[in-house]
């Protein structure tokens, strides 16, 4: 296990540059992504909001934060991407940032970027002109993605199915883990290629579309093979899970802030309902959870950014802690809003649906605790 002495000092605060990035993203979302717009977009059937994506990914340049400059990106780190995700969570923004700019990009970075087959798609994703998706079910956990359900023949033709892939319907590029003639491999597949079919699933979370993918001799270009392919997928899931904690933090923050605002204004029995101790204690307890979630999420982002050997522990801790906090905050938000919290027009349901869906995404809290048992030497009976 990682001992106390070889653990690096994590930086759990935000730098001035990170705060500047946050301000830019927050301003954009305030302008283009208010709850009414999110709700309207969710009912439009579009996989995501392309104008919002363009402004976020291209104009502000967030799509390439994880990509080194020489490969066409911004050369930032998981710390900055985490700040973007906090803001996206706070707005339940309908954009494929986590799936494309974090998970798909991380998978490509895990391959050999000196090869043109890797560098080309990587630069395209970093630029934000299109989006990509790693073809694994959304609940796949780091270290536990299991055997691929897609087979590849010697010519690179892919056949098989992958269920519940997030943001796959809108993605131009699919990164498909497959069992090839020489073992596991990762393939690039154009979403529009013959033999590729995406069946939309009606998702619990309207702001993050899901699709079942079916491949019938679809043409794939190999990106990596063997252990490298497996490690690239695992690293992508680890990075995704670690940064998802920041999205969960953003969700929880919005829910707490709105609940405090509402209960301070809403009067019943001749008093603001927020003056009742039974409600106050619940909100104070939530505030504690949100503050703790921030420490856990920052720690995961920092460990991923520094390439720390402690990253698997930091990510598992962050997911085991932050996922339930987001769900709890959203559930409290609904309850403490009373009847209005159950309506379609109030945005609280969007946050509950995202929070609950995020709890399953990239490994449930229970799976992450299982992972921890091995990582920190607390073996099961």
């Amino acid at each position, binding site marked *: 296990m990682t001992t*106390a002495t070889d653990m690096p000092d994590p930086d*759990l605060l935000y730098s001035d540059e990170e705060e500047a990035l946050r301000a830019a993203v927050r301003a954009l979302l305030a302008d283009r992504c208010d709850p009414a717009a999110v709700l309207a977009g969710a009912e439009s059937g579009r996989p995501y909001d392309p104008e919002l994506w363009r402004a976020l990914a291209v104009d502000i340049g967030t799509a390439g934060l994880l990509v080194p400059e020489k490969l066409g990106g911004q050369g930032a780190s998981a710390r900055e991407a985490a700040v973007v995700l906090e803001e996206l969570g706070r707005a339940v923004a309908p954009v494929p940032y986590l799936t494309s700019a974090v998970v798909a990009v991380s998978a490509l970075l895990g391959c050999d970027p000196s090869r043109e087959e890797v560098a080309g798609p990587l630069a395209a994703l970093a630029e934000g002109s299109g989006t990509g998706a790693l073809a694994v079910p959304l609940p796949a956990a780091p270290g536990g993605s299991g055997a691929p359900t897609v087979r590849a023949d010697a010519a690179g033709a892919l056949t098989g199915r992958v269920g519940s892939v997030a943001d796959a319907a809108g993605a131009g590029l699919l990164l498909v883990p497959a069992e090839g003639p020489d073992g596991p491999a990762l393939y690039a597949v154009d979403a529009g290629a013959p033999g590729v079919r995406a069946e939309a699933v009606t998702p619990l979370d309207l702001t993050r579309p899901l699709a079942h993918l079916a491949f019938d001799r679809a043409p794939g270009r190999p990106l990596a093979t063997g252990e490298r392919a497996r490690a690239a997928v695992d690293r992508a899931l680890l990075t995704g899970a670690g940064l998802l904690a920041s999205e969960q933090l953003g969700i929880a923050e919005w829910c707490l802030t709105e609940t405090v605002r509402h209960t301070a204004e809403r009067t019943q029995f001749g008093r603001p309902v927020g*003056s009742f101790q039974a409600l106050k204690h619940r909100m*104070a307890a939530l*505030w504690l959870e949100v*503050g703790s979630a921030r*420490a856990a999420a*920052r720690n995961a982002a920092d460990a991923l950014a520094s390439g720390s050997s402690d990253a698997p522990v930091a990510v598992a801790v962050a997911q085991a802690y932050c996922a339930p906090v987001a769900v709890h905050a959203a559930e409290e938000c609904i309850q403490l809003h009373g009847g209005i919290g159950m309506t379609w027009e109030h945005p609280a349901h969007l946050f509950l649906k995202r929070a609950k869906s995020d709890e399953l995404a990239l490994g449930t809290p229970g799976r992450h*605790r299982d992972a921890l048992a091995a990582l920190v030497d607390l073996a099961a*009976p």
Partner: protein
Amino acid sequence: MTDAAELRRRTAELLAANPPGATDRLDFLRARFDAGLAWVHFPEGLGGLDAPRALQAVVDAELEAAGAPGNDPGRIGIGLGMAAPTILRYGTDEQRRRFLRPLWTGEEVWCQLFSEPGAGSDLAALATRAVRDDGGDWIVDGQKVWTSSAHLARWAILIARTDPDVPKHRGISYFVCDMTDPGVEVRPLRQITGEAEFNEVFLTGVRIPDAHRLGEVGEGWRVAQTTLMNERVAIGGVRTPREGGGTPAEGRGSMIGVAAAGWRARPELRTHDLHRRLLTLWVEAEVARLTGERLRQQLTKGQPGPEGSGMKLAFARLAQQISGWEVEFLAEDGLAYDDWTLRRPEGVDFTGREAGYRYLRAKGNSIEGGTSEVLLNIVAERVLGLPPEPRTDKDVAWKDLPR
């Protein structure tokens, strides 16, 4: 401004003039205080050099490397953490000169006479009376409780009611009480652990000269806020390692460290239910550690956040859950208790002794220093800005309050 290099130079000077091996411990501590290296952020002449607080670590590291004797923060914690900052802020020059040096060297131990049996979390409801006599001295009568170190203390910080005719927060004054006064009686208060970590203190006709008052008459509540603030901000400058440090096998540093070490050492006691709960607690303890670390980093950068008020709540809940888990995990051994002998420890050791002791002692964590329920109210009102509780006692004279 005194910088790190200057502090190193002065520390070297101190060590040269008072070689640790050849100097009496108390003489060394006095010399250190007089050199301004005791608490460097205090003023010159009062044990400090008006230096940034963070630079204390520079001095401490140099002195430790030289094998210099330290004072005993565990024994004099109340003096260091509560009395000293209050005396510094509200004391007269004479009071500062008289009290701070022996407080820091440990020659004089301090205790705190705030809590009362009838007040509890409603601290401002206190009933101990201080009445001025013709000579200008104050005569104090009343009872205090939960007083740690009272049996060792030379001095106490005391709040007492000096005007019962005004609302409760306004009629309080703040004093330094001489614990050797014949009217002070200290009785051990035995707790559920069997030991007497605290005392009851009975004050009967205790005479306090007006020169031992801190702050104006009737301003005691405001002075006490300084004391209490410093009690809650007692978060260290050192980062805490995962599981509290030590090797995984020892795990003596923190409650979760002890529990994890037990799990590793006793495979025959493991069950799936205990495993599931241990991992949940381990995650929460690790997150609490990270939250404390984040707060420490904020403080170091000079950006204190309100998170400190939450740390105590998290600590209390975790200590109770982990120690409860541990007793259950130990099975037959959990049914035995190490020792019920009445003892009077000089300090609190939350992870010391056995699981049963930890379980019982942790029950106090959500009560002492503000109950969790009161702290949640404070968070809700001061941090989240929620509307206050209706206050029926706010404008009522203390003497007219129902009791």
